[in-house]
């Protein structure tokens, strides 16, 4: 910005930079819009792992009183496992707990504490009872995004080999959800 600044040629290049930047951004927007019209690009799509797909790559750290796990652990399971996203601040999760405690005897449940302070989650499990064989913490909610979780509680039934065979986006104390899970579980066992 001084009088004896860069030469005119360099100034020309500098002054063209905003245009170049805007051009790149504009081209990208063009790509997005035409992709949206063709249906190949959808910014509103959360890549929810629909049933039938393998579990996403993830890892959750230990959450007292349990041990964390990752996608590798789920790929190595030999019996079906229920993945349950929960949080101590979530009232439907509290309501769901008795059902999970009953289910624990039939099916191993692995919990993921969603956006929950580890202390709060641990305290919650002390009070409500702990249905989980393993528990991981997803304090920042990143893993939940990978799984396409829209809210807690949400549960996924994982078949041996790490395939998602069922997904329920409501508390398991709901009879319909429970029946659907039982049906899916029956198919997995067969």
């Amino acid at each position: 910005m001084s009088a004896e600044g860069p030469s005119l040629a360099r100034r020309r290049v500098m002054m063209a930079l905003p245009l170049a930047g805007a051009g790149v951004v504009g081209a990208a927007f063009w790509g997005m819009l035409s992709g949206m019209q063709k249906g190949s690009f959808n910014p509103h799509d959360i890549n929810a792992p629909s049933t039938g797909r393998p579990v996403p790559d993830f890892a959750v750290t230990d959450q007292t009183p349990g041990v964390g796990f990752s996608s590798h652990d789920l790929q190595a399971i030999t019996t079906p496992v229920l993945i349950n996203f929960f949080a101590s601040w979530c009232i439907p999760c509290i309501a769901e707990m008795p059902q999970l405690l009953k289910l624990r005897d039939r099916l191993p449940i692995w919990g993921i504490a969603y956006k929950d302070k580890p202390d709060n989650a641990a305290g919650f499990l002390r009070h409500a009872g702990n249905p989980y064989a393993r528990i991981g913490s997803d304090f920042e909610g990143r893993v939940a995004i990978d799984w396409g979780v829209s809210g807690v509680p949400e549960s996924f039934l994982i078949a041996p080999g790490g395939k998602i065979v069922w997904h329920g986006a409501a508390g398991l104390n709901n009879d319909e959800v429970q029946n659907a899970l039982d049906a899916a579980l029956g198919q997995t066992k067969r």
Partner: protein
Amino acid sequence: MSPELGHFALALACAFAFAQTILPLIGAQRRDRRLMTMAPGLALGQVIALGASFLCLIDAAISDDFSVANILENSAVTKPLLYKITGVWGNHEGSILLWALILGLCGAAVAAFGRNLPAALRARVLAVLGGVAAGFELFCLTTSDPFDRVWPAPLDGQGMNPLLQDPGLAFHPPILYTGYVGFAVPFAFAIAALIEGRVDAAWGRWVRPWAVAAWAFLTCGIALGSWWSYYVLGWGGYWFWDPVENASLIPWLSGTALMHSAIVVEKREALKIWTVLLAIATFSFSLSGTFLVRSGILNSVHAFANDPARGIFILGLLGLVIGGSLALFAWRAPSLTAGGLFSPVSREGLLVLNNILLCSICAVVLTGTMYPPFMSLLFGKTISVGKPFFDAATIPLAIPLFAFMGFGPMLPWKRAQMWPVLRRLWIAALATLLAFAVATWSLSGVLPILCATGAVWVIATSATDIANRVALFRIPLGQSFNRARFLPRAAFGAALAHAGVGVSALGLAAMSQAQHKIVEVPVGQTESLAGYDWTLAGVKTEPGPNYTALVGTIEVRRNGHLVTVMHPSKRSFNAQNQTTTEVSIHTNGFSDLYGVIGDKHGDDAHPTYVLRLHYNPLAPWMWLGALIMAFGGALSLSDRRMRVGAPRRAPAPNAVAAE
């Protein structure tokens, strides 16, 4: 008045706008006075036509003309009159029309207040404004016609989203749009200057009031939007770093930078190219923000009519306006003469620093907003960028900004010495130290503590600045008062606006310590939060005009004394099958008690209710600060020097005396 008349008036306005673009431009090029002087008349014609068109739409809304598709989709017979009127701009088509109307008003304002501008400059500014208006009116006419008819007309409309039936939101769009669109005027000045190939001190002085006015409106608009989300959405939050919110914050940041760099152009004839670029960038951000939101690219809670086909038209228009202006910039700016050297320790030196920091924050917000769609496009990955990123990236940049903001206005122009200024700031420094001690004791987290300390520093130094200017306590009080009377209002305005930033920052810092609790309780149960005992005393059902409400009564006590009785409610709108929460907020100016009633659980014999209780310290200060900022802007606009003293163009550079 019929919708067809409105449609015709809109087409007429579009024709006026095209004439307003082409004729004065030719006139300015050929130095043809007749063509140049047509510009104000055409601008006036355009705004009259737009006003008529807008009135037609309002008339259709008031008279429940459901043969108009736009009214059918957004209104209903039972909707209260206020929302029938304000609902006109609560939807895509109507808001584009409002946008065009405000742009037309800006043109008319330049025509009216710009009488002492050089004829060619005025003609070109109006031509640029006309060009932008023509584009958007064409967009309105071809892809988003608010006057589209349906036949046969149904008996009743589909109603409006109940969330939008709120006085705060009714007036949020016009104020926000005035802010956005207002930056079209500095933009037009920048383009006119590029065409002319001349930017000088006088140009800086002409641009500044427009930038300040737009900035003040944008500040109010953002604050109103944030306040609305605070008391309507019922999440206790005030800012969600949502793309739509960011879309308003980005031009605000670059507009703030513009407002300051224009001062350097005016006083020191430096930063000229930079200021022109900022003027272009700010309006470009305003345009891109508001319009890309409607294209559906940005994933947002503000779901307007998302339509990729419209998006293509908008993108073409944006390409023309932004691409065209940046191409002109690339072509003409290298030949603009650069300003003189200046030393880092001077008022202009600190203004440059302010620009760098503001633009860095702006870049951070821009990156955070655009990153998810770009990642999705390039790598097919879905990610979300949220509060942790924005907080961690913007606050460390804001703190040095606060630090320099305080004493920047006290430094003299050209070459300054730090020591004499710092010596005058010892009281402010003491206050800041004290604030730091209090903050460390009462707040947790490094960023909130630094933010609160910086905020107190800004307020204290702004007060010191005024006290110094009137020589408070150094001369008799009466004389100080006299000095204050003759102090330029712009000085008061700047100090107030800076103090407003401090007040807002204090509110933000304190809000990081907000406490909340979500509980499920039967009637009669008491919960304690933040030293208050909250008792759900009762719940009843009340009918409303187009909804039924579940109203809770929460008694809040502190040490056994009743503080307040709150009545949060939950409204179920049958027509839309939608519920809204009516938050109950009790404020004493220093903290808000915030209660929300949610779902009913359990059987009818033993019902329990979900309550959301918040304790929000200093929450009102966030918006109060924004109001103070905007008021500071308005005060500085009322300064005679800004209003009438528009200087004649200096014959030679450097003839405008530095203060």
